[in-house]
């Protein structure tokens, strides 16, 4: 008796779930693609740009007839930058919407968290994540990372900073994988002897950052390096300013976007920040600014929105190239349309589709960079740019070309 009741309880649960309509599956003549972006939580400041980019590319392609004569149906979900939520959202995208790819994941824990599900369902993943575990966990060659791994960021920024003659550093990093391994990369280049004290971590969402900042500047170092995101960096920087530190503050451009500059005002001047950037005068980046309705300010805008455009463009071109919706074939075709010499370079999906249909080989060069992939699906070296905030604007100091 008792057991039957339990089963009924279970049944009640699953029938309730059954009520969710089954017509949500993409119609046969449609290609379903999932977008899983961090619209709230840690990635909140960046996710909406990625979402918008995905939608813009899809809308443009659909308006001109779609891919393989099929319309693209985009299903957008919010990962909340939380793997617990994201894995269920991925479940819905994979099993209900039957998407062939999930693109736009940002935090490594989300990308890795949904990977077992994606791998077993043969779903392509495109992300901007940092963890070195990603290529290891991807056993089927279905994952493409549109962002250099974070130790590379750390090394590049360190090289640029060293080039400016800075010798003594103190550093603290936000306590997550991305920022922690960025700090490790930085230390690799400047060397342990360049540190005036042990580097340490802080958590996001603290009620104050006073003691951390006091500790950070206690030896009055020449420069401080703080790998971080915009929400915590803004609070940390306010405290650095209020505690009267006058050395150089170095961070990533992720932390110093318009939100930071608006929130901090004139005090933002002098902050130095580095970021992987599109090649100089990249036509794709200029096009992106137009599509997103932005002015060309010379500084990096929408760091992940550009990657969002490239993810969706690459995926659609690969589908066209593969000539079918077979996932393994599409994944292989991603290399065909992005990587390799002697092909026609295209900067947007429309030109790419036209060239493919004309029987040409193409190499898509994106708004976030040249988007060439190594055999593990990780994006290859990208230019880095170091900028300084002057009068509330980013001024390019130097560039590191790969």
């Amino acid at each position, binding site marked *: 008796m008792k057991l039957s009741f339990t089963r009924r309880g*279970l049944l009640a649960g*699953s029938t309730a779930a059954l009520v969710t309509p089954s017509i949500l599956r993409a119609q046969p003549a449609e290609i379903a693609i999932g977008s899983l972006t961090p619209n709230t939580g840690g990635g909140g400041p960046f996710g909406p740009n990625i979402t918008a980019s995905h939608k813009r590319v899809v809308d443009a392609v659909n308006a001109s007839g779609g891919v393989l004569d099929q319309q693209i149906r985009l299903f957008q979900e919010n990962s909340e930058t*939380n793997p*617990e939520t994201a894995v269920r959202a991925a479940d819905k995208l994979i099993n209900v919407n039957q998407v062939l790819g999930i693109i736009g994941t940002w935090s490594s824990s989300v990308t890795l968290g949904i990977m077992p599900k994606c791998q077993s369902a043969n779903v392509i993943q495109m992300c901007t994540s940092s963890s070195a575990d990603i290529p290891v966990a991807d056993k089927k060659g279905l994952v493409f990372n549109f962002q250099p791994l974070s130790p590379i960021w750390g090394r590049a920024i360190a090289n640029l900073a060293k080039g400016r003659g800075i010798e003594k550093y103190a550093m603290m990093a936000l306590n997550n994988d991305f920022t922690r391994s960025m700090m490790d990369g930085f230390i690799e280049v400047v060397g342990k002897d360049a540190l005036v004290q042990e580097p340490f971590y802080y958590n996001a969402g603290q009620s104050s950052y006073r003691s951390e900042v006091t500790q950070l500047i206690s030896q009055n170092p020449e420069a401080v390096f703080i790998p971080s995101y915009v929400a915590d960096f803004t609070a940390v920087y306010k405290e650095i300013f209020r505690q009267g530190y006058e050395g150089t503050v170095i961070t990533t451009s992720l932390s110093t976007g318009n939100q930071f500059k608006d929130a901090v005002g004139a005090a933002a001047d002098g902050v130095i920040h580095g970021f992987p950037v599109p090649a100089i005068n990249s036509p794709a980046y200029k096009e992106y600014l137009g599509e997103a309705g932005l002015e060309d300010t010379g500084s990096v805008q929408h760091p992940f929105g550009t990657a969002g455009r490239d993810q969706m463009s690459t995926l659609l071109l690969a589908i066209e190239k593969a000539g079918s919706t077979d996932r393994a074939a599409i994944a292989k075709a991603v290399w065909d349309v992005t990587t390799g010499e002697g092909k026609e370079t295209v900067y947007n999906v429309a030109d790419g589709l036209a060239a493919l249909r004309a029987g040409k080989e193409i190499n898509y060069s994106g708004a976030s960079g040249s988007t060439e992939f190594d055999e593990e699906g990780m994006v290859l070296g990208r230019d880095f740019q170091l900028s300084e905030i002057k009068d509330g604007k980013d001024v390019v100091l130097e560039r590191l070309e790969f």
Partner: protein
Amino acid sequence: MSAYLISMGTYIGFFMILALALNLQWGITGMVNFGVAGFYALGAYASGLLTTKLGVPVGLAIPAACLVGMLVGGCVALLSMRLREDFLAIVTLGVGEVIRLIVLNEDRITEGPRGLRIEAQPFRDFVSAENYPLFYLFFVAVFVCLTFFVCERIRKSPMGRTLRAIREDDVVAGVLGKNVLRHRIQIFAVGTFFMGLAGALYAHYTQNISPEVFLPMVAMFIWMSVIVGGAGNNRGILIGAGAVMVFLEGTRFIGDFVDILDAEKMSALRIIMIGLLLIVTLRIRPRGLLPETKFQFKPN
């Protein structure tokens, strides 16, 4: 679609075990535990680390995770000796957060923010890949039944009467010669035993866990399951856990039809609706969907 229902059923199973365990602690015994997410994490990491780092077979790692949950829970229960229930709420919330901080910061052992990848899955070699999700649903369902069975037995036993007496008035229960502290520690430990179980089952299901999975938000959903379902009533709890998960995930589908709201606004709206679910349920049915039935003495 059926694949989706299978995995939702599995998630509902995790929620049901957690909610039944919390009901044992709070619904029946009146012991507040806001550290649900912490004990969930404890079970997940215990089993995950045992299998990945020490190569312990899953069949041993899952029971071990339950025992770890039980031991830590027993220690935390000692706090109830001196704490009022609302203060115990804050202290247990703290315990949950500290467990998460340890997992986050002791990355030499736990992999910290990188997250822990777990290959091992129970009975993996005996079930084909395409049938495995369905198998796992039944695997979890068996444990839900087991948990339900144990909880019902405790509720109906003479011990259950003592526990309810402690819930209503621990002083009276003490005066009647019941060892209040021992009962509390026992029942809290049994509850965290099952929370550890749920964590272990979750870890081997998703095969990838990180500290961000176990934020206090999870504890909140389990509390809502218990309150919405009807504290004290195990069947109500099953309904409550199902209702919260269906609401949580069902609201996702609105986004597929409504184009006006972007993903960010949509998720804000979903959380608002979850909050309203609790408040509206309590306004209409103050004791939950299936309230606890008052016990009457029925001689055989």
